[in-house]
């Protein structure tokens, strides 16, 4: 499947992009992370969470959307 991956804050700095298309054949967030780490090894050193449909998801969540968003630690307020 073809995913759109979005990066915010520090993560966009690390990957040098804020949004990219990413071809991927697995079904779980954990599998997606393994795959994206191959493309952007520096992400592995960073603290972040993945979100799908405006909700934070855990590693064993199934991917149901075409868009995955990677979020660094929050700093609102």
């Amino acid at each position, binding site marked *: 499947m073809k995913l759109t991956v*979005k990066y*915010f*804050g*520090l993560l966009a700095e690390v990957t040098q992009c804020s949004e990219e298309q990413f071809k991927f054949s697995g079904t779980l967030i954990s599998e997606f992370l393994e795959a994206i780490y191959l493309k952007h090894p520096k992400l592995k050193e960073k603290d972040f969470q993945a*979100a799908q449909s*405006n*909700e934070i998801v855990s590693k064993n969540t199934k991917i149901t959307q075409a868009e995955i*968003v990677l*979020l*660094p*630690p*929050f*700093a*609102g*307020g």
Partner: protein
Amino acid sequence: METKKPKNVFKEGAISSEFIANSIAKHQSKTSIGAHNIFLGQVRADIIDDKTVSAIEYTAYEDMANAKFHDIREAAFNKFNLTCMHIYHSLGNVNVGEICLFVFVSSTRRKEVFKAIEFIVEEIKANVPVFGKEIFEDSTHQWKVNS
């Protein structure tokens, strides 16, 4: 199921004291209100490794952030007996000493507003995807993390 579209909580740049005054004045016609509580987040000139923060540049995953702000509003109205609630957060550049977060709750009685304001601010800090790039006076930067 809640189907109401989330409001846009974000404002470009700092939140001015005139904007806050105007919000307060608008509540004079709501004569069942006995107590307001306002929380303001202000950008600090923190010193990190001998470098001083001069501004924070805020970005957000706006779609999710507005959905989360909406969830926080709904939760606060359910938990506390509130008459009104308003939340505004800055995007873009906010200089030190300027206001980046404005939370405003009102109720008939005071006990409710104390509990509500703390709940809302802690929820925002923990659950809303807003990111802050702390810009130092020498134009280098680091990424802020809420504690």
